[in-house]
């Protein structure tokens, strides 16, 4: 038996083609290895924004998790964080609940008890349910209406259905729809836009803010910057939505239907020319134009500075970062860098990047973060100078790393500038430590 992790070169993956991704890279065809990237998704309380944290994005909200005890287990980590203390409550199911569904009868009373228990009335109670209710076919909307009538405050459903991860409405899509569902029609403010997609704000220095202001947009809303429930409700006055993460598309469509609020999607990219092109198209859709020269130059300068000193660096890219691992790898190769390994889960949509990656860096090896064979990943096989992403750091401990997974979100040229600056710093520090030894 060869103890080898499964991997495939970009060239071979591209040759296999869209719609023909090898089973080892698919999530539903094999047992799933608990890599850090898997855990980031499957253990959402542990790190990043999963359904539980995301569900509490509405200011002043609290969450009642209605589930077997195991589903709420890792929430103790969150309850230790100041901003989540006293915001999680648990209605634990037992076997009788599972058989009879009687737990649903208890929810209105539990909501009332929570409201009575808290010194201040919450703005919203989110009811989070899990796989068992997915299988029981629970009509949680109905239960929430009943609880809302009884407690006299909004009660919203929130679905932590890992079973539907590859479905039309995966949990992270659903929760985004849910948290914007309380926005109601109010008088439109033409100079207002909502940024949808993330549960933490963009970096304060992101060029998107001044670029939008240059178009006359004076108010830019993000749910994570709303200090009160009233500020959150004011998002209903926006003229349009900017969708910065495709998982918010459904929420944006819902707002378009309910509030006649159109939306435009902008992708997070690391290829400078593509960023420029995207901004150009966006501005022209609004009948305007941007002067993005300054920001573009800063990004180009950061890339040049890195390549000048570390142009021969061999990089490994993970998916547990604020980037699409394949788009980022393509960006690196287009800047003349070598990407030897990618730890990711390719989808059909990623082939637009994989096709070009295969042409520029055909030997890049793609490892599945989900494959059981990653148990045998050996970092000694190939030399890597720098890793990007938390998962890449896990596979290659000791190698200089930029985790690039902070909660504040990078975007646009500023994302490129900051990433390359961090990469240079990581390698400069590593070199100076090496020479001082």
């Amino acid at each position, binding site marked *: *038996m060869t*103890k080898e992790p499964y991997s495939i070169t970009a060239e071979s993956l591209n040759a296999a083609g869209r719609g023909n991704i090898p089973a080892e890279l698919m*999530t539903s065809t*094999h*047992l*799933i*290895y*608990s890599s850090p990237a*898997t*855990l980031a*998704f*499957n*253990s*959402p*309380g*542990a790190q990043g924004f999963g359904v539980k944290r995301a569900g509490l994005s509405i200011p002043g909200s609290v969450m009642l998790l209605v*589930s*077997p*005890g*195991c*589903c*709420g*287990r*890792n*929430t*103790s*980590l969150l*309850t230790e964080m100041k901003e989540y203390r006293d915001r999680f*409550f*648990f*209605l*634990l*199911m*037992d*076997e009788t609940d*599972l058989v009879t569904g009687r*737990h649903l009868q*208890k929810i209105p*009373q*539990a909501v009332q*008890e*929570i409201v009575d*228990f808290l010194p201040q009335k919450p703005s919203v109670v989110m009811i989070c349910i*899990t*796989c*068992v209710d*997915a*299988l*029981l076919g629970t009509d949680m909307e109905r239960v929430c209406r009943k609880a809302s009538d009884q407690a006299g405050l909004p009660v919203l459903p929130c679905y932590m*259905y*890992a*079973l*539907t*991860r*590859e479905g039309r409405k995966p949990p992270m899509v659903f929760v985004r729809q849910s948290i914007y569902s309380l926005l109601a029609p109010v008088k439109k403010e033409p100079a207002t836009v909502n940024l949808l997609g993330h549960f933490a704000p963009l970096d304060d220095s992101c060029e998107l803010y001044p670029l939008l202001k240059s178009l006359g947009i004076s108010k830019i809303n993000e749910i994570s910057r709303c200090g009160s429930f009233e500020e959150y409700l004011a998002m209903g006055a926006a003229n349009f939505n900017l969708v910065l993460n495709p998982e918010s598309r459904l929420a944006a469509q819902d707002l378009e239907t309910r509030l006649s609020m159109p939306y435009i999607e902008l992708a997070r990219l690391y290829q400078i020319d593509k960023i420029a092109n995207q901004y150009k198209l966006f501005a022209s859709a609004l009948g305007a134009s941007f002067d993005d020269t300054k920001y573009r130059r800063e990004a180009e300068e950061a890339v040049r500075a890195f390549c000048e000193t570390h142009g021969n660096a061999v990089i490994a890219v993970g998916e547990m970062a604020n980037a699409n691992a394949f788009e980022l790898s393509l960006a690196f190769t287009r800047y003349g860098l070598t990407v030897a390994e990618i730890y990711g889960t390719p989808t059909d949509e990623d082939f637009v990047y994989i096709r070009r990656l295969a042409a520029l860096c055909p030997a890049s090896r793609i490892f599945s973060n*989900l494959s*059981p*064979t990653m*148990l045998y990943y050996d970092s000694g096989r190939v030399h890597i100078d720098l890793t990007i992403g938390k998962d890449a750091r*896990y596979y290659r401990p000791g190698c200089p790393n930029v985790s690039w997974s902070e909660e504040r979100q990078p975007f646009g040229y500023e994302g490129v500038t900051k990433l390359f600056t961090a990469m240079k710093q990581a390698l400069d520090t590593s070199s100076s430590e090496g020479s001082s030894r």
Partner: protein
Amino acid sequence: MKGLWKVIAPFAPDQSGASAVLYELGGILVICDAGGCTGNICGFDEPRWFTRKSAVFSAGLRDMDAILGRDEKLVEKLCAAASRLDASFAAVIGTPVPAVIATDYKALRRMAEKKLDIPVITIDTDGMELYDRGASKAYLALFETFADDDPRTIPNAAGVIGATPLDTSSLTAGSDISEVLKQEGFDTVFCYGMGSGLDDIRQAGAAAKNFVTAPSGLAAAQMLQSRFGTPYEIRYPVLPAEIRNRYPSFSGKKILIVHQQVIAHTIREEAEKACAGRTLPQITAASWFMMADELIRDGDASLAEEDDFIRLVRNGQYDIIIGDSLLKRAVPEFTGEFIDLPHFAVSGRM
């Protein structure tokens, strides 16, 4: 209301307990879930995950797998993994999803064993019980399946059942317990699941005595006693010095210990010995986890709800509470001394 927890987050569930027992034994562990339960185990309840690799995988169930009861697909996935991994057995560990669809674990085991050339065990955990129930089931399944009827002779050997990070809140408990028992005169110590492997489980019948360090180990110890005549003793031999050093100050105090019962009871017995000749402390042991009849004294409390604990503290007028500091949140009005004794299954702290 019953089932509503307002302050304390849920404790480690039964599938985490089962996984903790099997973790070091070199098998393929398949958590029969959609991903979240495995995430809880590897990302939270199993502190060894980031320092010592083990083949713990999620079955990756999807809604249609569950609705259609596609056991054969799970077996195919298991066979595919087994063909590429070096494993001595496979274990399928249950979660709420198979509980809802009433998975027949015996049938699943037979199906898998027909296609694999390694033994298969199944643990029917459901995510609604606590970790100790799952651990207990795993110990029983292990010894029933693997313990040789005719083990080789190993003179003066001791077995330890009930040591997992969830119970001991330590990554070195296996070696620590072994060291103490060797100092007490044993030549060989098998700390099952924490330092000792599957071969040692096979030789379990050779132990001269078993030590039960948590209630989760009791059923297996009783089974080994009945099968091999091995006597057992219930005791936790490696209590932290910070607690032991405090024993003299417990004299005359009213104390509540909230932990796994063997630790709570061992503290009680040791403290009473340390206070001999003076006013003995009045010590109550309480636990949300399994309570062995052998250790229960009048006044001890088996807790079911968060409110049970709050009520116990409110009515008990204790001078001292010993327990995981996470529990302090539930009793903000308690004015006595709270001595922190982490319980990993409660707070995820060592």
